[in-house]
């Protein structure tokens, strides 16, 4: 993928991330709307995963945070050194980390939502 496309996707992910992180923090009592400890009770957590909107919010948050974080890491690592081997190693390494992270998170959402 072209670098300009990746950067454009990153801008979209940042916009999504700003909204979803605020909602995520709000749902865990960081802005005083709900009780922080209460939001971590097992039944409440599972309820959130089994409702469509919160589960969707978590999924979007997972994908946007993973992309933005790993894309940022890739940019920092590419600034450290340069060369075709290093570039490829960093890009594929970051991609692999992203697949593991998003895959693991989606597995949790799917298993909890379906009660499996």
């Amino acid at each position, binding site marked *: 993928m072209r670098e300009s496309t990746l950067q454009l996707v990153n801008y979209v992910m*940042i916009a999504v991330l*700003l909204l979803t*992180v605020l909602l995520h*923090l709000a749902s865990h009592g960081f802005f005083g709307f709900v009780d*922080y400890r209460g939001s971590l009770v097992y039944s409440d957590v599972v309820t959130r995963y089994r409702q469509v909107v919160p589960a969707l919010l978590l999924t979007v948050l997972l994908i946007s945070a993973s992309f933005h974080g790993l894309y*940022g*890491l890739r940019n920092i690592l590419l600034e*450290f050194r340069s060369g075709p081997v290093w570039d490829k190693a960093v890009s594929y390494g970051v991609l692999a980390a992203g697949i593991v992270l998003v895959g693991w*998170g989606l597995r949790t959402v799917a298993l909890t939502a379906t009660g499996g």
Partner: protein
Amino acid sequence: MADAIVSVEPARKRRKSPVGDQVRWAFWRPMNLEKLALFVQRISGLALLVYLFFHVFVTSTVAGGPSMWEGIMATLENPLAHFGEFLVFVGVIFHGVNGVRILLLELSPLVGTPSRPDYPYKVQSLGRGQRSILYLSAVMTALAAISAGFLLLW
């Protein structure tokens, strides 16, 4: 004239340390707040990425049933973990607000008008607008620290 040059000492090779270079760059004179803010932005971003991996792993225990979830929650019920959550919340707020400033600079609405470089050679592209967002991010981080302090550490 050429005979006068007896020997030229080869430049001493400096050991390259990319992380050290980043730190030196941030604190090297001339110091400015924007350099420091970008350094903190990177550190907070990397720390939040490490936390994201940890967070996804911890929340995955919810799929293992109530006993597994309660077990990991009990493990994390300690002052060190609460302090970690405090740092994450403060880091998220700074990274978010300062990130908006960087985004607006990159997309150019906050870039100042170019002018002749006069002493003390201030960076003309860094206008007053972006500086006020930088101050706002510092204030919001302080407020987040107070709020998270009450919520998590009290």
